[in-house]
């Protein structure tokens, strides 16, 4: 009897969540597998990972690297409150958040003394990623790194110099297989004055195309701009 009640409750919750996404097309559905980049940890640097958000709210992470095979690692269950998705990694104490109103999945993460960002593109269903929980499976997945062809430098706004204003901007975006930058979104913007110049520089940038290498999926990436003023007197 109790089991039946719990099953009905779980089913009701699942249906409620499904209703939510079907009723609100502007809300990103995180369920599925995503290719992501984590950045901002000075000890580790940038990390390329795969995240899987299951309908039962379980979260898995894998780290595809060129010469190693890692199984899926369990993270905390993903939670949805209003439009914010949260989950955490107990191994390093990082708590991840994402606003599901963005064009793709991504947001920021925080640990005790650190904070950074993450950005993803959907890998879609049914794609053989070569990552398996079976340690005997020797299938490998190689992610070719994005190679910048044009990395435009932003102009430092004159008004910012006059006002002695410094700042930091992080823009996350998607690179399509032709190497063009698409769907930029500001993840961090400490001073509004740097918005236009940062976006102009990013959209003037491009990467080496990889269509011929057979992987036609867009890739997530982020770029940070640190605007500094050095005193000369």
């Amino acid at each position: 009897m109790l089991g039946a009640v719990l099953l009905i409750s779980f089913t009701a919750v699942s249906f409620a969540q499904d209703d939510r996404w079907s009723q609100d097309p502007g809300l990103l559905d995180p369920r599925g597998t995503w290719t992501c980049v984590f950045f901002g940890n000075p000890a580790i640097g940038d990390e390329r990972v795969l995240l899987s958000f299951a309908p039962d709210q379980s979260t898995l992470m894998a780290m595809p690297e060129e010469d190693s095979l890692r199984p899926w690692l369990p993270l905390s269950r993903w939670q949805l409150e209003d439009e914010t998705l949260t989950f955490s990694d107990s191994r390093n104490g990082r708590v991840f958040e994402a606003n599901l109103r963005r064009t793709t999945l991504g947001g920021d993460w925080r640990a005790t003394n650190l904070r950074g960002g993450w950005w993803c593109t959907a890998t879609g269903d049914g794609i053989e990623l070569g990552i398996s929980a079976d340690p005997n499976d020797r299938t490998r997945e190689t992610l070719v790194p994005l190679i910048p062809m044009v990395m435009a430098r932003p102009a430092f706004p004159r008004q910012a110099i006059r006002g002695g204003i410094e700042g930091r901007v992080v823009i996350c975006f998607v690179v399509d297989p032709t190497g063009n930058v698409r769907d930029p979104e500001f993840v961090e913007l400490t001073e509004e004055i740097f918005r236009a110049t940062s976006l102009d520089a990013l959209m003037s940038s491009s990467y080496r195309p990889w269509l011929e290498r057979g992987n036609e999926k867009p890739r997530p990436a982020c770029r940070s701009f640190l605007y500094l003023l050095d005193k000369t007197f």
Partner: protein
Amino acid sequence: MGHKLLVGFACCFVASTVWSQAMDNRTIIGAGNEFLSAASFAIRMGQYDEGIRLTHLGLNRYQPSDRDRAAALSNLCGAHAAKGEPDIAIPYCDESIEMNDKDWRAFSNRSYSYFLKGMLKEAEENLAIAVDIDPSAKQVLQIRGMINELGLRPRVIMEDHQ
């Protein structure tokens, strides 16, 4: 453009003399004030030489109050700085500040004079004192902008995360 900027500065620098005289009845009574008032007006209109001449008349022929004298010296400093003569301006500011170290305009004028000489550290120090005395002074922002534009080197560090 540069001339208009200097006139603008001059107007701000000297405005206080006329304003304070209008607001404070104690300084209206006293010989020489009409020359100092006329001098303020001339400098505000960009007639620096005339303003300097009238200020000297007001200071030398009559006995203005200490407060008026300090303000007049600050105006002389501002006028000479507006003419691009910082070496003549600075001693007037020094004398004004010695008589009254609570006048933010004197510090502001001296800051601008040091800026003209390229002595940015001294310019910034005087500007900081002016801000301490009156944080809402608009002219301070303008001078600070000029100091920053000359003395700060911008740098952008970019990093890709993928």
